[in-house]
């Protein structure tokens, strides 16, 4: 038997067109989850197939692609996806945020501010911000249609009553363009402010749940809160042990078996940039 020949970026043009139509609809209705006929991809559902389909649909031969997971280019999943596109699209890849035109990410937004020429593609496991409060899809669809978000604030109220703070630390729900409540994907709430009024186009792909949504450039994105318990940007106690940054999200690394720890930047490109090290081009 002969090996099948794959189209540029794996998906056939019909499929890409279908996905782009969904993306356009999503951009037209910021924060609204557009259903799409997600395809089985060569990596498992739950491992970024939504993000991969969005990236595959928008990638062109002149694009430069960066892929990160937990902020790093070198985690196994980021490597695997980057290789997939290198093989099926032959596009140039990079670890430098500033050089990329398309950045696919899982669970972090890069520290380096993004520009108008860039697209950020998020991998989303559960696109429905109301899902854990209301398991039924028929019900949550109605709630979005009627902007019936009372139950979301009930959850936040409960957190404050019980813990004194809002207890959501990642996938912190936001209101997009003053209309739809949206899940930013499991990025730490630390990253939420970066979504607001960003010059870049933000696209969200959920393959298994079959939804695409978008935040167009320069769109208002507000984290849900109460007037007297406003959204707080999370502050680490400390700075990066390698580059000294006190502004970036820090990973905690266990360094010995007595529980010794240190903190380093989660965004590896950002950290390397600050230290003046780092490789040219694709690792």
């Amino acid at each position: 038997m002969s090996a099948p020949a794959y189209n540029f970026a794996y998906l056939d043009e019909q499929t890409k067109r279908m996905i782009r139509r969904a993306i356009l609809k999503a951009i037209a209705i910021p924060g609204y989850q557009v259903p799409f006929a997600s395809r089985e991809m060569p990596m498992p559902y739950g491992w970024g197939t939504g993000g991969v389909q969005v990236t595959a649909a928008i990638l062109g031969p002149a694009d430069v692609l960066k892929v990160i997971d937990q902020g790093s280019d070198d985690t196994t999943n980021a490597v695997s996806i980057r290789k997939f596109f290198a093989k099926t699209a032959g596009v140039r890849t990079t670890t430098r945020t500033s050089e990329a035109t398309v950045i696919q990410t899982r669970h972090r937004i890069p520290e380096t501010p993004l520009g108008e020429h860039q697209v950020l593609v998020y991998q989303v496991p559960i696109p429905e911000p109301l899902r854990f409060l209301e398991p039924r899809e028929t019900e949550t669809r109605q709630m979005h249609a009627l902007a019936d978000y009372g139950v979301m604030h009930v959850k936040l109220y409960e957190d404050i009553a019980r813990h004194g703070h809002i207890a959501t630390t990642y996938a912190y729900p936001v209101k997009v363009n003053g209309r739809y409540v949206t899940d930013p994907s499991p990025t730490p709430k630390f990253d939420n402010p970066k979504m607001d009024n960003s010059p870049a186009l933000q696209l969200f792909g959920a393959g298994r749940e079959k939804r695409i949504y978008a935040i167009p450039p320069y769109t208002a994105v507000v984290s849900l809160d109460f007037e007297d318990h406003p959204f707080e940007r999370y502050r680490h106690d400390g700075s990066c042990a390698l580059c000294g940054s006190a502004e970036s999200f820090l990973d905690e690394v266990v360094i010995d078996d007595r529980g010794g720890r240190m903190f380093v930047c989660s965004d590896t490109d950002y950290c390397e940039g600050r230290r003046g090290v780092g490789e040219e081009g694709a690792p």
Partner: protein
Amino acid sequence: MIERDLEQPLLRAEGLSRWFGKQLGCRDVSFSLYPGEVIAVVGESGSGKTTLLQLLSAQLVPSRGRVRYCMRDGAMRDLASLGDAERRFLFRTDWGYVHQDPALGLRMSVSAGANVGERLMAIGWRHYGQIRHTAGDWLARVEIDGGRIDDAPYTYSGGMRQRLQIARNLVTRPRLVFMDEPTGGLDVSVQARLLDLLRGLVAELALAAVIVTHDLAVARLLSHRVIVMKDGEIVETGLTDQVLDDPHQPYTQLLVSSVLPP
């Protein structure tokens, strides 16, 4: 006496009928309810009173007839013509519905404060302190100890749950409240306390209400008018005191006479 605007009932049932397959739910029910008026629908089980309540609150579609409701802008609307959005909005603001089993009308695992505050948050309140304060006020009004505001209703007694359900419904000052056997399942002494509370709140807030009950004492204490139902049809209707003191129909007489004296 109630001020009646004879031009504009709040709710009007016209020839309401409903069958379930071949089984009759209710037939040819017509009446008008005016703002601030309380009507009790009494009858034994199987009389059709619960079916009627569900028809009036747009939870069932009539097989014949219609229900019209006076919206806040003054327009009389056929409930069957309302869209989902409008119906849900009514339920959130203008209407209350008190279930016989309070667990159906509450979020059992969420705190009492959140239960009462939910409607406020749904209509746009965004100040935690104010929401909590208002919830606390309402707990006091329904005689629940303020210290229990952070407890979830599954830790409450039956009577407390029912009072919490009432608070949750009244916090947005609805104009019309539907109650399905509000004292059902409670001890006699707890019932008495609850009825007293309801009477006070209904009068204070000038609520209109439709109360379904098999208990004539509830009807007498709370309602201005009563509708007596049997086998899906209205048997007698009129001012509560008049009907209960001087029933005309044999069935009503039977009901009244079978009530044990207190």
